[in-house]
């Protein structure tokens, strides 16, 4: 999350993707950094998913990702 916060400070709109296991840790890190970056969560687990399952997770996350880095609804 440091990277996103630093890149935001440089003027880039950013979003950080993490598994739902990371929800509490993400909140704590954000507080620790005094920032509030955009985060999109994907359902845990990650490590033992098949490639197809991971691609499906990416498809599912795409709308939220695009919404977080633009000022308007995502294109389709």
């Amino acid at each position: 999350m440091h990277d996103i916060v630093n890149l935001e400070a440089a003027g880039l709109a950013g979003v950080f993707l993490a598994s739902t296991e990371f929800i509490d840790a993400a909140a704590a890190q954000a507080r620790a950094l005094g920032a509030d970056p955009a985060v999109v969560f994907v359902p845990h687990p990650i490590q033992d998913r098949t490639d197809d399952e991971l691609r499906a997770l990416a498809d599912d996350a795409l709308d939220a990702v695009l919404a977080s880095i633009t000022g308007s609804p995502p294109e389709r």
Partner: protein
Amino acid sequence: MTAVETRLPDGLVAIVKRECPTCTLVAPVLAELRAKHPGPVTIYSQDDPSFPETTGGAIDDRDLEVSFSLELDTVPTLLRVEGGRETARTVGWSRDHWAELTGISTLGAGLPEYRPGCGSRTQDPAIALAHATALGERTLRSRRLDLGAEEDDAEAMYERGWSDGLPLVPPTPARVVRMLTGTTRDSQEIVATIPPDLVDCTVEKVAINAVMAGCRPEYLPVVLAAVEAACTDEFNMHGLLATTWFSGPVIVVNGPITRAIGMNSGINALGPGNRANATIGRALQLVIRNVGGGRPGAVDRATLGQPGKYTCCFAEHEDAYWDTLHVERGYRPEQNTVTLFAGEGVRGVVDQLSRTPESLTRSFAACLRTTAHPKLPIAFDAMLIVTPDHLRVYEEAGWSKARFRAELGALLQIDGHEMVRGADGIEEGIPGSLADVTLPKFRDGGLLIAHAGGGAGLFSGIIGGWASGKMGSEPVTREVGS
């Protein structure tokens, strides 16, 4: 700082600590009181609630809340309380005083008549300081920023845009409380309305920025006066920020306070090396940028800027041959003042050969002629800082400051022909219609003369000013309060 009132139980109240031999001495007397006194006897212990054993211990006052509220100096202290109010108090052990207070004459048989007490724990310097700080911190109103565990406090202040580019002292609540001890003013008093955002700025906000600048508490009254002076309509801080010209506030401090807080009027008076000079000027700038919102690139659009905008603050020599700036401006020598001047950078005047006041004055005139531009009279102010070696020429010749001003003024009457646009092949200048007029380089009141600097060096200094009058800035003097 006033103590918080605690409602006391009626009857007799004693405060003791185990660590005090006199308290140990009177431990049996306290037991006696329990037995003989008709009303309640309440005992507080500052260090160990199991003391005194003779009374089965005491109420725990290790956090010293009751002790602080009673403003104790000494233990044991014995009080009589009626209707929730203290009506009598005695400290240490004295049979007579205890008898008088309690109405029981037979106390402490076998004890000496009298034994002084010990210091109350509330008098311990570290404890007293922590208590005052905690009390003070509760009165602070500014928003608190809790830095993340991973944040470096120096970096965090930079990242939040609080810095002028140089590092800051982190303004913790304890530091701000300590800074506020430097003034008697209430922390929530409004000092000034700060441009450009026109924010009402409290003493507390000034204190926070003064901490960041590196000030000591005793500098705070000077900083407060500087903020007040800078935010007057006449000084026109807003205009000064918004102009593309690069003047910034220069602070000249006068009066006994300059010695009291250790300011520098001598060698390097306008240079680095003195904490008071450096941090007072910086604190003013930080208040303007942080509270007022006057940041470079935003409202502050100075084309080039100059290093004096980090800080420019100095003290004059106070008992020199000439009147000080503040005396010239109508104050008594013993008054403490700040004078704010919209100044650019400092340039030097070299004159190592003039032995007469006439010659030296002509040097000054020649150099002053060129402030802003040799062909621009009246519109811009200036400050001349005459250093000791140069002042000696005037002292030896018996020229008062007033005489110097008059002679200098006469030399700065300039023929319009020299200054009209196009003269000397320079397009800048005054309108051609003024060719036949003689104009003074400086308007009335447009030239400030100060005296500072080290004892060796035949070099004086000129600080050019900004535009004068309604569109520009007027030098402003304010008395330093407490």
